[in-house]
């Protein structure tokens, strides 16, 4: 019974392995089967969670807007996602004239795959991670890029001008925001000295990286929200401008998959922030009771996810020139500065014997102050260029 508490996932694996070998399977085949089974379970949990999240998000947005939200189907409207699914299942599948059929049908599938695929490297609890690979961070970035690709495929293959505009905006937005996201990912890699997600979480025992690198965490949060195409960065599907953009020609479950993928992408971002900056499953007693670690991880993810929703429902959509200026003229230079400052400060502090936490935190605060001062100076000079110079003494003499 103690084993079930201290190592439940290992115990399940051992029990299954014992069962399969008793059936006469060789150990390697049995191990492969168990891996396959766990992958199927993880994929199904992701899908179910995605459906549940559509309910959560609708309920929360309703509260933000002083409404009740779905409350008719089942208790608290909990069966609403199932009702939506059945409705979408019975919708006629229409393929528009002149569409590139293969690409058109592949796009929603890839959109979901890119989100589920990321969960292979996310450590859910101590000793519970699908693929503990030593390039975990790069894996997340590369699989995430498939999501961008799927949106471009959808926009290009639909044979619709609005959809094509959405695909163009994808290039301007998703592709651009990948730069600060990837650069911000350098900071936890650098602090942990490893690209493996499990190693990054283990290095955060005692002190999560958000204390050492608050700016990098914020930049990663903002730019990955833009990556997911969440408001205020939802230009690629701006309803009031290009009527849903890339997914305009999609109906029924094909649209449903885009919808599900997008909602679950938000949750995946929250999980990534929790793993990379908030310490994942780390917490009191977590290393001896893995189930507790899983609960910590989910709690941290839920808190960050609430932040995602909060930003999403509070800010109006940006204009495309503002969006690009914010990325290329603010986020990217700032992220470069954050990487340089973190790398140099950490090394110098270690050499000169300062406390690592104090030095890094101080460097981040100084960087924030410098950034605020630079923005202020820029705004002042821009105002001076725009406004005609008023002689204040002459104005006073007139009065």
């Amino acid at each position, binding site marked *: 019974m103690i084993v079930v508490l201290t190592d439940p996932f290992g115990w399940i694996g051992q029990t299954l392995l014992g069962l399969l070998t008793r059936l006469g399977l060789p150990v390697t085949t049995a191990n*492969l089967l168990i*891996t396959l089974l766990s992958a*199927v379970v993880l*994929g*199904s949990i992701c*899908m179910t969670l995605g459906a549940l999240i559509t309910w959560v998000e609708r309920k929360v947005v309703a509260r933000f807007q002083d409404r009740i939200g779905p409350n008719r189907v089942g208790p608290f409207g909990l069966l609403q996602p199932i009702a939506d699914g059945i409705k*979408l*299942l*019975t*919708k*006629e*599948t*229409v393929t*528009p*004239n*002149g569409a590139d059929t293969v690409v058109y049908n592949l796009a*929603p*599938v890839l*959109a979901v*795959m890119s*989100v*589920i695929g990321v969960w*292979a490297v996310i450590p859910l609890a101590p000793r519970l991670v*699908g*693929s*503990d*690979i*030593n390039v975990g961070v790069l894996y997340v970035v590369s*699989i995430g890029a498939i999501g961008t690709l799927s949106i471009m495929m959808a926009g*290009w293959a639909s*044979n619709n001008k609005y959809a*094509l505009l959405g695909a*163009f905006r994808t290039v*301007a937005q998703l592709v651009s925001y*990948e*730069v600060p996201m*990837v650069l911000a990912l*350098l900071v936890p*890699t*650098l*602090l942990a*000295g490893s*690209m493996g997600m499990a190693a990054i979480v283990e290095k955060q025992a005692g002190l999560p990286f958000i204390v050492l690198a608050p700016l990098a965490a914020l930049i990663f949060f903002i730019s990955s929200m833009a990556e997911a195409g969440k408001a205020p960065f939802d230009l690629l599907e701006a309803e009031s401008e290009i*009527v849903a953009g890339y997914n305009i*020609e999609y109906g*029924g*479950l*094909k649209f449903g998959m885009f919808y599900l993928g997008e909602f679950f992408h938000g949750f995946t971002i929250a999980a990534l922030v929790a793993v990379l900056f908030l310490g994942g499953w780390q917490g009191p007693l977590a290393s001896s009771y893995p189930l507790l670690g899983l609960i910590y991880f989910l709690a941290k993810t839920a808190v960050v996810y609430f932040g995602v929703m909060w930003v999403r429902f509070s800010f109006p959509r940006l204009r*495309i*020139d503002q969006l*690009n200026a914010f990325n290329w*003229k603010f986020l990217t*230079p700032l992220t*470069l500065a954050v*990487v*340089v400052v973190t*790398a140099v400060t*950490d*090394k110098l502090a270690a*050499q000169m014997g300062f406390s690592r936490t104090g030095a890094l935190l101080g460097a981040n605060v100084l960087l924030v102050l410098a950034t605020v001062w630079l923005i202020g100076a820029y705004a002042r000079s821009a105002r001076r260029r725009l406004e005609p110079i008023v002689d204040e003494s002459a104005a006073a003499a007139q009065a």
Partner: protein
Amino acid sequence: MLDQWIFAAFLLPIGLVIPAVPILLAALLSPHKPNSIKQSTYECGVETVGETWVQFKVQYYIFALVFVVFDVEAVFLFPWAAAYNMMPLYMVLEGVLFILILAAGLIYAWRKGALEWV
């Protein structure tokens, strides 16, 4: 180490199957009555004029180009960051120099007006 990839290798095809099966199921279950009006592309009630795959603004191309520069940079920087704990200070400074060269590239693109949305 290579064993660890097996899970990802299983999860990616499963990630393809999980959304594909409901879509195929929907194609079987849903009504199928196509007609030319229904299948025409949507454009607020009027018919699409001319080719759909129109010429696009050169701005998008320039942003994609700047992106490529930084993405390639990231590929070089990740090994540097992963080996950070083993490096003396001068190696860190070499990485910083590399970042500064690219920052100079960004400033050049900025001064040239490549980052303006016109």
